[in-house]
């Protein structure tokens, strides 16, 4: 077992070294959390504008429309609309979900849950946040350049994203921001992997790690392997745009080129499909743990869940072609990608069975983190099953690039990941900031969000099946889409409801962080993983003495326990009756 005495940090003295240039993984985690929440609100506002344009084309956006779009009297113009959905996708995926789940909870949870005093490379960790901050700044700056921000969709397929389709600097800055963010995430991934391999507390084997750490670790592996692929793709795109190379230019678009725009799609999706799992794996890990914690029994088939997650990680690298069925790959490739895609449902079904097995015959406490975790099971069920239509080549020929796809990936990436992040925030709040968030408002937040998001994303699935394709400024120029006016309105109203529900969260969160007097106890949720053996909020050195792990992370409801608790800490010998 890899182990050595780690130094106790001295508490930082100045404001700068404490909050800005901190080496402490917990502070860096919090920085990422604020960063992510900020971008979540920006991206959410963009989503509302998109929805508004779809439901009420030609009507001014309420309240702030006049201020944002003065030239068109508050109505969102078509070019701005394209920028909005491009930036919405980019911001949500790279600047909201990634920082919150991987940046914030990866940094915060990994050392605490494996019993380490910090990450292996604190300096690298700090740089990783500051590089991400630079990237966020570049992205926001791209909104204000002449000709506006990138407008080629978050996938930014060439040749639309080359100078042919988007002559402004916005697209260049977009590519640069993504590249810089990739550097930051790769640095984070190196840190996470090394930390998990070398700094586990003595006695902690890989299967004694909480599943959250499994999820985050697998995510880091995917990040380290596949972000450079995207990095290479956007670098070549930058070369095409700035230095005049012709990688992605072809046909009449290129004066001399013999490049290939489809190459970018290959590169993008070699990264892009693992990226989907990069986003969802931490949420799966968190949910697997929380279901067990609040059902007060060990995680059902924890090893099988961990191995299923690993299997999915491996499979996710082999299936990217199902994003490109309409570009006419050879039937042989199509066949291969479809079959590989379908095998993903075996591990998925296994851990669904394990999730349900965990709550079966449990003693469920319906706290807010538990509600959000069960919400993830529900929405991910829908998201996963709707994926089947899109992995199947013939149905994909119809549904590709329709709102069905949008609904599907919002269920998997937006709904599941968002609910998973909320579960994590509510759950680790006492350990992060030392206070609990208000349970009542947390539950109100859950139910409104749940209703809202199902309204939005179910609406999208229906629209997609009715044939409405993506990224339309005004779908109602088509006769066959005219019947969809009411369902678009319904979806938009659901989105507004869901958007306003997040105000509850923000107020609750800010109140708990800055204004709440009442301190949380060391272990308010009564669970036994290592982070709950130390005071709340976690002191800056984490563990006074490096803990020695003697049992698994989910030892709850053991009938042999005699000391009046129904759980035991990982530092305690497993009770046997």
């Amino acid at each position, binding site marked *: 077992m890899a182990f050595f005495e780690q130094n106790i940090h001295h508490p930082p003295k100045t404001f700068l070294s404490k909050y800005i240039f901190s080496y402490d993984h917990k502070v860096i985690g919090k920085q990422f959390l604020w960063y992510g929440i900020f971008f979540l609100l920006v991206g959410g506002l963009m989503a509302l504008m998109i929805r508004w344009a779809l439901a009420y084309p030609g009507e001014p956006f309420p309240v702030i429309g006049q201020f944002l779009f003065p030239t068109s009297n508050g109505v969102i113009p078509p070019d701005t609309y394209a920028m909005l959905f491009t930036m919405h996708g980019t911001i949500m995926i790279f600047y909201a979900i990634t920082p919150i789940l991987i940046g914030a909870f990866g940094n915060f949870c990994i050392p605490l849950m494996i019993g380490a005093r910090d990450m292996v490379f604190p300096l690298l960790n700090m740089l990783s946040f500051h590089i991400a901050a630079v990237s966020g700044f570049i992205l926001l700056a791209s909104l204000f350049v002449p000709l506006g921000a990138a407008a080629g969709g978050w996938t930014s397929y060439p040749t639309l994203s080359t100078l042919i389709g988007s002559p402004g600097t916005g697209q260049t800055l977009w590519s640069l921001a993504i590249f810089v963010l990739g550097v930051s995430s790769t640095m984070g991934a190196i840190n996470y992997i090394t930390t998990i*391999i070398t700094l586990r507390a003595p006695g902690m084997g890989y299967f004694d790690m909480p599943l959250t750490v499994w999820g985050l670790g697998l995510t880091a592996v995917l990040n380290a392997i596949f972000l450079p692929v995207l990095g*290479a793709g956007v*670098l070549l795109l930058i070369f095409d745009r700035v230095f005049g190379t012709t990688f992605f230019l072809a046909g009449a678009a290129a004066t001399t080129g013999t490049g290939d725009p489809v190459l970018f799609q290959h590169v993008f999706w070699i990264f892009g499909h693992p990226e989907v799992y990069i986003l969802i794996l931490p949420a799966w890990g968190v949910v697997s743990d929380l279901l067990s914690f609040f059902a007060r029994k060990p995680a059902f088939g924890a090893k099988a869940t961990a191995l299923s997650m690993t299997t999915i990680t491996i499979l996710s690298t082999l299936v990217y072609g199902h994003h490109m069925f309409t570009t006419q790959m050879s039937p042989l490739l199509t066949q291969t990608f479809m079959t590989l895609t379908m095998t993903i449902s075996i591990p998925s079904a296994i851990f669904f069975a394990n999730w349900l097995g965990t709550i079966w015959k449990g003693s469920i406490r319906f706290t807010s983190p538990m509600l959000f975790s069960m919400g993830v099971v529900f929405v991910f069920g829908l998201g996963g099953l709707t994926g089947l239509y899109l992995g199947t080549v013939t149905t994909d020929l119809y549904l590709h690039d329709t709102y069905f796809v949008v609904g599907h990936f919002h269920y998997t990436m937006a709904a599941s990941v968002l609910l998973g992040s909320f579960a994590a925030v509510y759950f680790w709040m006492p350990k992060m900031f030392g206070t609990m968030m208000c349970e009542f408002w947390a539950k109100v937040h859950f139910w409104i969000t749940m209703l809202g998001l199902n309204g939005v994303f179910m609406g999208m699935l229906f629209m997609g099946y009715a044939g409405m394709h993506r990224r339309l400024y005004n779908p109602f120029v088509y006769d066959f889409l005219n019947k969809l006016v009411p369902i678009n309105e319904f979806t938009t109203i659901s989105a507004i409801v869901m958007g306003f529900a997040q105000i509850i969260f923000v107020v609750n969160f800010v109140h708990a962080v800055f204004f709440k007097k009442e301190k949380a106890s060391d272990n308010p949720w009564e669970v036994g993983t290592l982070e709950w053996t130390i005071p709340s909020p976690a002191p800056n050195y984490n563990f006074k003495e490096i803990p020695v792990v003697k049992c698994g992370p989910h030892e709850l409801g053991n009938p042999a326990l005699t000391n009046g608790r129904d759980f035991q800490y990982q530092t305690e010998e497993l009770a046997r009756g």
Partner: protein
Amino acid sequence: METAVNNKINHQAELQGSVALIVALVSFSMLFATLFLGYSVFRLTSDMWPPAGMARIPLTIPTLSTVIVLVSSAFAWILEKSGYERKSMSFYFISFFTGIGFVVCQFYLWNMLKTIGVFTNSGIYPSMIYAFTWIHTAHMVLGLIAFIYLGFLLFKNNWILDDSIKLQKANSVLRFWHFLAVIWLMMYALLFVL
């Protein structure tokens, strides 16, 4: 007892250093692997390579670069084998300056390409050569910065790397350097010779 603890710490530092280095090198290789993938797609699907109207790049300068990078890598290897002693200081400097020589060579290569009329915007073949060499040279510059860091490390410690954390850092710098040499060899073989 103390030596046992020290051994453990040393072992730990080595482990951390090598795990981190492996992950980092995997990331870097994926970046280049993507480029090689793109290159082979174009190469295998086109009827003629280099495409019609394109001359082959004269091999003189790339070959020179190859020799330089091999020399540099070899001296770096000797430096590591010698255990970073003060008497191997010259190996460090030879390795470092040949590294700079390689970067200078790349600038000569780009100049030469311009004089023979191969510009970035004249099709996929020059695009490939330019993009590969740009990205690789950028990494070489990173490698040189790491080399300067290695110099600081060595001079600060009077050329005695007695604890394994420092030794690990020094070795990592050199392994990255060897990695870049290997990438260049692949580029030389695939882009210029074949």
